[in-house]
């Protein structure tokens, strides 16, 4: 694991030796990390790995058992008041007021942040919900609710935005819109701290990712560096032949290497892809099981 020591001391999020216990259960165990301004930072882990606990602590909704947490230079939760207006969160559940309209939902938070009420409509327009501003939220689809959450999270122009499973339940278009918004926010200097099960989200969006397993940080680096770190895997290629058949060939096995040479010489290859390790492979290697296992468990529970 590569240390994050090169990052500036003005990190928007600094966590030192963070531990959180719920009774006898240790949810976080000596976690340390930092983020850079304008960085998109991803936190990956199984259900119960401690991701949501960490978000709760970083947003001042839970107290650490030990360790130190600083957000925008302020100790959290001790100086929470100082950062309250500068951070925001898109939660993993659609925690909006169902009986209120979209506009009323945001106007409440305009009141809490001391913003003009007109800001509510602007934020709704920004996430393409302006036309349904007066509609009750209980009539909204999952994607619309997620956009409403995003609008609410952007009301106070946060310097640090926490996203907890932001693409869960979203259709591909809404997920793509979210990616674009997040990328644009980061380009504007907002630090994004997201937790996700979705390896594609992490790979596409995040400049760095951290893997959390049973409350411990088991890896922290760029997605590319993490993938390259899986060096014990043999190079492998997938070929599609001109007759449509597919084959996987491991280049460290002499028969496969010879077969590949023959196919190239005979010009029978229509396409060929190198099979590099994915972020999911790295996670399985480090955590012992796939994040997809969590999804299967969640589905079984339903």
């Amino acid at each position, binding site marked *: 694991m590569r240390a994050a020591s090169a990052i500036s001391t003005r990190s928007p999020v600094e966590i030192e030796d963070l531990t959180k216990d719920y009774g006898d259960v240790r949810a976080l165990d000596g976690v340390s990390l930092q983020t850079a301004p304008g960085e998109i930072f991803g936190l990956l882990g199984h259900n119960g790995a401690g991701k949501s606990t960490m978000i709760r602590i970083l947003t001042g*909704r839970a*107290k650490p058992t030990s360790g130190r947490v600083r957000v925008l230079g302020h100790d959290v939760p001790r100086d929470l008041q100082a950062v309250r207006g500068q951070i925001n969160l898109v939660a993993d559940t659609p925690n*909006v007021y169902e009986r209120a309209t979209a506009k009323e939902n945001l106007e409440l938070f305009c009141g*809490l942040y001391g913003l003009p009420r007109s800001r509510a409509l602007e934020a709704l327009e920004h996430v393409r919900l302006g036309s349904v501003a007066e509609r009750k939220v209980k009539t909204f689809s999952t994607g619309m609710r997620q956009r409403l959450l995003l609008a609410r999270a952007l009301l106070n122009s946060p310097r640090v935005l926490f996203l907890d499973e932001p693409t869960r339940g979203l259709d591909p278009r809404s997920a793509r819109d979210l990616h674009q918004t997040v990328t644009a926010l980061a380009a504007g200097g907002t630090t994004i701290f997201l937790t996700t099960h979705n390896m594609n989200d992490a790979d596409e969006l995040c400049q760095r990712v951290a893997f959390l397993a049973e409350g411990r940080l088991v890896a922290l680096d760029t997605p590319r560096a993490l993938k390259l770190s899986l060096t014990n895997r043999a190079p492998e290629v997938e070929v599609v032949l001109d007759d449509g058949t597919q084959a996987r060939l491991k280049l460290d096995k002499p028969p496969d290497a010879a077969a590949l040479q023959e196919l190239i010489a005979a010009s029978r290859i229509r396409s060929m892809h190198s099979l590099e390790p994915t972020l999911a492979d790295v996670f399985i290697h480090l955590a012992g099981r796939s994040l997809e296992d969590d999804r299967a468990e969640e589905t079984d529970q339903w």
Partner: protein
Amino acid sequence: MVSARRILAILIKDLRDAGRDGRILLLLLMPIGLAVFYNATLPNAHELPTAQVAVVDADGRGVARELRTAAGNSVNVEVQNTRNRLAARTLVAAKDVDFAVVVAPTQRRGPARAEILVSEGASPTAQSVIALVPDALTRAAGRAPAAQTQVRVVAATHRKPGDMLESRELTVLLMVVLLLVFVAMMVVPIQIAEEIETGTLGALRLAAPGPEILAAKALAGFLYGLAGVGLIVLLTQLHVHDPLLFFGAAFALIASLVGFGLMMGLLWPNSAAINTYAGFLTLPLIGLAAAALFVDPGAFATILDLLPFPQATKLLADGLSPHTPFHAGLGSWAVIATWALLGYLILARIASRREI
């Protein structure tokens, strides 16, 4: 630092949301509706019979005043001052009044005199007031009465304080207590439990400290309670003898219970379950409040005296009835204040443990 702006924003949201939540509307409107229903259907034992009297009192000797005094609390005497005998007679003939008293001009000697004009078939109430005229006339003339009467005071039989409340007062009083208990032990917990269930409490906590959120919820409870009590008084047109005491007691009761209501919502964050089952908790509380009105002195009465809702019920009764049946004083306020303090201290402890 506590922000009134944030508290107000959450309060307005809660009030608006309450108006859209059928469960809460039912809990608020049911006691009000019952109070109006009972008020309309139960007889009013305190409603006085009325006698309408025309008085011709050219010398202004205060006969009308003396007549009202003589009638006391038994008959409501409505006086119409009239210029002369003819006008008085016209009123009697038209049955615009029950009878007329025409006072003769002042004479130096002899008894004060008056003529009484009464229509045929005068009511028993009118007859009873007519019987009071000679005495009123004598008093107005400032002369010794022609006959002396001996007054004997008959001791009243023992009555429980609650018996001093007439049936309408009693039922409306209990509906007020029901409303306040519903607000504190159901409406307030439902609202906070729903915030926890849906995760909106977490969203609020990002923008406002926990104590401000709880303060807004408590204020919403106070407002529901006081507005509901005000509406009950308005709709039933019940005469509240001491409004300051009555509304002060209502506020004290709601304030003492809301802390426990918030605690219930935090410990039992399931709004549907609270709506379904909290009634089993609230109904015994109403029973205890009612018992406080009629219980004889003893161990049970002592236990009731240590609880806030029986004490508040006594204060409400004192504020409502002109008889001040309980003469509840500082002790009652102290019991309520102690429970209120206890409730908020435990709430603060639970909120801290739950990291709210």
